[in-house]
């Protein structure tokens, strides 16, 4: 399917406060879609609608539909959705367990019991996240002993272990140093060959470096979306141009 995720007239509310206004967007497969915009514009809310993490907030509700492979996300089993659409958070949040256990956790909760299978998948995922070489000799050490950049790659490996089709990244490198950031960006360029990726970032240069499509949010509205190269050189909407040229934000 060329556009596995289709968002139709999505509005989001925290109690009475509206956070997103009729967002309409199609996410293309096996590519990186960047979501940019100033603070508080609703980027995080938007991305957390996709894997229903906002369900954890008691006062949250949506209007509109999100269709994943043609099926309404909000009518499907949420644990299944979250397995198929993985998430990596802004601040790396590995579990306070061993490196091996972090990656294996997803498999265990989805019922995989075979030890060999688990070990194999752990290795594969860590390789896909470009972390295997650095940790292969210390899989039983605590994940908290890794550096920030390594922890984030571990979180990526952890998400990959359950074989998702899509990855959601919420400002994945804003808490990481520049060198580690570069490695993760390189990793993303590699991953997009096989996964559909949606990435929130406040760093426009990063969006320009990594993404194929970009969407610009302002105050809960999706102002404009298009191929990244076009968005950054010749945007259609004046507001987009103002943001990109730094007139605000």
């Amino acid at each position: 399917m060329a556009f596995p995720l289709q968002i139709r007239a999505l509005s989001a509310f925290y109690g009475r406060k509206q956070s997103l206004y009729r967002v309409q967007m199609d996410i293309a497969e096996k590519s990186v879609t960047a979501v940019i915009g100033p603070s508080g514009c609703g980027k995080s809310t938007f991305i957390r609608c996709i894997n229903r993490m906002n369900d954890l907030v008691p006062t949250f509700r949506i209007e509109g539909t999100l269709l994943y492979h043609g099926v309404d996300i909000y009518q499907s089993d949420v644990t299944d959705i979250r397995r198929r659409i993985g998430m990596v958070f802004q601040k790396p949040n590995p579990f306070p367990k061993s490196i091996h256990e972090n990656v294996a956790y997803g498999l265990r909760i989805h019922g995989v019991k075979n030890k060999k299978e688990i070990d194999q998948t752990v290795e594969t995922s860590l390789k896909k996240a470009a972390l295997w070489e650095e940790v292969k000799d210390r899989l039983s050490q605590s994940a908290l002993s890794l550096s920030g950049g390594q922890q984030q790659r571990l979180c990526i490996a952890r998400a990959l272990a359950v074989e998702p089709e899509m990855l959601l990244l919420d400002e994945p490198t804003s808490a990481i140093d520049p060198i580690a950031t570069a490695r993760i960006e390189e990793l993303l360029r590699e991953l997009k060959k096989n996964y559909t990726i949606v990435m929130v970032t406040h760093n426009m240069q990063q969006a320009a470096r990594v993404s194929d499509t970009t969407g610009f949010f302002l105050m809960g509205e999706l102002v404009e979306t298009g191929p990244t190269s076009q968005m950054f050189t010749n945007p259609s909407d004046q507001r987009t141009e103002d943001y990109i040229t730094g007139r605000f934000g």
Partner: protein
Amino acid sequence: MSSSGDLPKPRLDPMHAKTLRRHILPRLKDRLFAMVGLSATLLSLLVLAVLFMDVLGDGLSRLNWQFITSYPSRKPDQAGILAAWVGTGWLMGLTGLIALPIAIAAALYMEEYAKKNILTDFIEITVANLAGVPSIIYGLLGLGLFVRWMNLGRSLLAGAMTLSLLVIPAVILSSREALRAVPNSIREASYAMGASQWQTVRYQVFPAATPGILTGIILAMSRAIGETAPLMAIGALTYVGFLPGRGLFSRFPINFDCLLEPFSTLPIQIFNWVSRPQKAFSVNAAAGILVLFLITFMMNGMAVYLRYRHQKRSRWS
């Protein structure tokens, strides 16, 4: 350094009344308070030391193998704490078995599952109040409910159930704190991978909170060991010439009759001796107190050590 006029020097004449009041007196008061504060804080330490030395002086001589392995007696030099500490052990074991599962389950619910509504607020206030109820009131409840209404008599089981009522609120409070200390990012990461709520609680939150929960349990149990009042209220006997828990395995597979028999505990035995006028019994009491101290401090030490190790290990990055 600019040469164009330095700032005029302030007039700080120590003998000048204004200087004294504005600059010197406040600083003096501050210093004075520091000393007073240190003394106040050390006063507690001093009292503790005096207390301990006194008990040590009175009781150490009596502490010997015979003391630990004898039953109580009318003759002070023959009396011992055997039935008492065995009773304490049995009582604690039973209490733990009854109280801990209920308390931890309640804490898990309150912290992870409860929605914000009137019922949960009510439960929260109830638990907070129960933690402050005088322990002897629990004894009255035990007397009326377990000893009389349920006809358990003045038995080990009634005692354990009564002490459980005391232990449950305290363990709920400390367990909730331990659960609260687990960062939310762990829960989020777990949910984002498709885990259900119970999977998240069971495989991530609870293991992460275990050291804290354990610390709270040890502290609550060590307080319960020293409890006298509620057991007195339900009528725990002070002369017990047999071992509590005897005959547990006399029938196949387990004979629970022993749970319905009277019992004694270390604090109760100590109290009994303290109430006697003869000086020799006072010596026995002191020796018993030393044993009680040993148990209590060992448990508290374990809890502190656990807490220390947990704080060192969990750098939540």
